[in-house]
């Protein structure tokens, strides 16, 4: 979307990063990220530990200043207008920032004080947040005595106490089990419907599928940005799923003939990233047939986000794993 007038920030843009960088000595934690996030998006910043997710969050929440580049959040500059940024956003850090020896309601009170929420609005806000996060029955319980999933929801409620329009969540579902994870995403979905923009980071690619758009982050750089479906389309070639009675022996054989990084074993299945599925299917049958390994099935399956991420990482690292690699080159291994 074009900005009609650069002096008048577009009301539909929630977050804008422009060549944002943050270095720690020689470590480039955030290395030139440019990105625009519109109001009402659930944007997922996806990458492994150490990719730069938390540093990006801290830059956008005005907790840390960038080395260079610029970022606008809710129309405010994160450096020059840090106070306005902090007032208009909610931020939940990995540790949820809760006081373990305060009760649920006392934690809410503390954050309401911090954000200067007027006293007359508080009771109604607390009621809404507690019922929203299913914490009403526990409002007198000490935060330290809540389960992991409930702590996480309380962390979210505290981040929402001043009704921010943009919410930053740094790996909110880390260490939380799948049931609580689902529950948490249900709550995020409700927030999203109220037009809150959500910027969430995660190391889990299956979780990224729930976002409306994602950015794959690696070593401080964005490898790709798009909807989960668009990102999957970036993968050239296809994934073959091979099932056999002795998958481990089969993997060893396949690794001799295909680039080693294009072969992965998943328990009872083998995934093989190939350029031409028909040719490769024949190869698989031939290679395994020669070793008298019964092939139960070979089929082409849609790539997962992980498959795409692996192929992109390999290309950045200059590894042999590239989907456009020629079959001949693969055999030179």
């Amino acid at each position, binding site marked *: 979307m074009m900005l009609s007038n650069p002096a008048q920030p577009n009301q539909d843009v929630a977050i804008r990063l422009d060549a944002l960088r943050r270095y720690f000595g020689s470590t480039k934690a955030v290395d030139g990220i440019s990105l625009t996030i519109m109001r009402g998006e659930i944007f997922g910043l996806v990458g*492994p530990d150490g990719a730069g997710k938390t540093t990006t969050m801290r830059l956008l929440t005005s907790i840390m200043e960038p080395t260079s580049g610029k970022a606008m959040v809710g129309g405010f500059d994160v450096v020059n207008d840090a106070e306005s940024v902090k007032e208009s956003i909610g931020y939940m850090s990995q540790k949820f920032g809760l006081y373990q020896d305060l009760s649920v309601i006392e934690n809410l009170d503390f954050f309401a004080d911090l954000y200067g929420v007027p006293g007359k609005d508080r009771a109604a806000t607390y009621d809404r947040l507690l019922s929203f996060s299913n914490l009403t029955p526990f409002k007198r319980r000490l935060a330290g005595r809540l389960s992991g999933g409930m702590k996480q929801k309380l962390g979210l409620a505290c981040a929402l106490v001043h009704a921010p329009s943009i919410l930053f969540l740094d790996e909110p579902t880390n260490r939380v089990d799948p049931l609580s994870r689902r529950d948490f995403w249900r709550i995020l979905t409700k927030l999203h419907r109220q037009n809150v923009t959500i910027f969430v980071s995660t190391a889990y690619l299956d979780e990224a599928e729930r976002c409306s758009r994602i950015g794959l982050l690696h070593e401080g750089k964005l490898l790709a940005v798009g909807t989960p*479906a668009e990102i999957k389309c970036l993968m050239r070639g296809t994934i073959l799923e091979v099932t056999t009675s002795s998958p481990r022996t089969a993997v060893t054989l396949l690794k001799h003939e295909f680039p080693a990084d294009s072969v*992965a074993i998943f328990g009872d299945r083998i995934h093989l990233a190939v350029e031409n599925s028909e040719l490769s299917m024949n190869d698989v049958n031939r290679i395994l047939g020669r070793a008298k390994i019964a092939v139960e099935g070979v089929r082409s399956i849609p790539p997962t986000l992980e498959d795409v991420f692996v192929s992109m990482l390999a290309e950045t690292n200059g590894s042999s794993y590239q989907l456009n690699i020629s079959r001949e080159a693969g055999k030179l291994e």
Partner: protein
Amino acid sequence: MQQLRFEKAVDVTNLEKRFGSFVAVNRISLTVNRGEIFGFLGPNGAGKSTTIRMLCGILTPDGGSGTVAGLDVRAQSETIKQHIGYMSQKFSLYEDLTVEENIDFYSGIYRIPAHKKKERKEWAIGMAGLERHRNTMTGFLAGGWKQRLSLGCAILHEPPILFLDEPTSGVDPISRRRFWDLISDLAMQKITGFVTTHFREEAEYCDRIALIYRGEMIALGAPRSLKSEESRHQFFDVSCRNPLVAVEAVRNLPGVRDAAAFGTSFHLSTESAQVAQEALGFLHRGAAPDAVMEKIIPSLEDIFVSLIETYDKSHQGVSEVNQ
């Protein structure tokens, strides 16, 4: 270390553990073959850690019996501790020691005989691919390397069974795949991997999976068979312009079990294909005229949530409240 002779890596029957009136583990029976990668899954508080502590000889069971690597979980718990490997995602490495120093430290702990120390150290360094980093401070290693070093340290004493607690959470997908390749190589040498995890990405690497919930084992099987056979319910992916509105519209229709938004579409789970068709018709008449529905193979997470919800429905009255 003495050579153990045994058939099954883990073989326990009716294992039980109570804390006061709370039944943490309720008569779990399971068998893990040698060289198998076995996944042990369940939400927090389901009884996973308690079970593993009993298997590792740290907790004594209140009921049931069995063996780990052929050793009795009641009578030989001390011997069990010496014969297992344990690695968690919180790499128990000393960041301010070098790679070699960490290995030496664990060699000491596991009392590796002097004549084998050098050989085992070289083996661990080779396996982890750390030849060029022997004298690097461990704190400076990237996540994937730390994790492989941690694995090397956990198996210096050549245990026949290795307990892995969320071993690859947070590492990049390439390192994760390399790690599981190593585990798979170990499995070919008949070293058993017993994995506990929350994460589907890890569970997918296992040969077989058990799902633990409220102290009971509610499912057991290969990932592929759990996806195809265990699911008595139908799963669909519905794409439409506004999945959030559509989810709310169908969630409470009769026969709909779950609806969860996934980016530009949502996952719908129903009791039958007919229910799904009716839900689609309902969407077409109202909330999402553009909805397109496709039957999908459910993810492991879909299956687990579905199994757990079925369990809860058949055990009405069980308190939902976590303590």
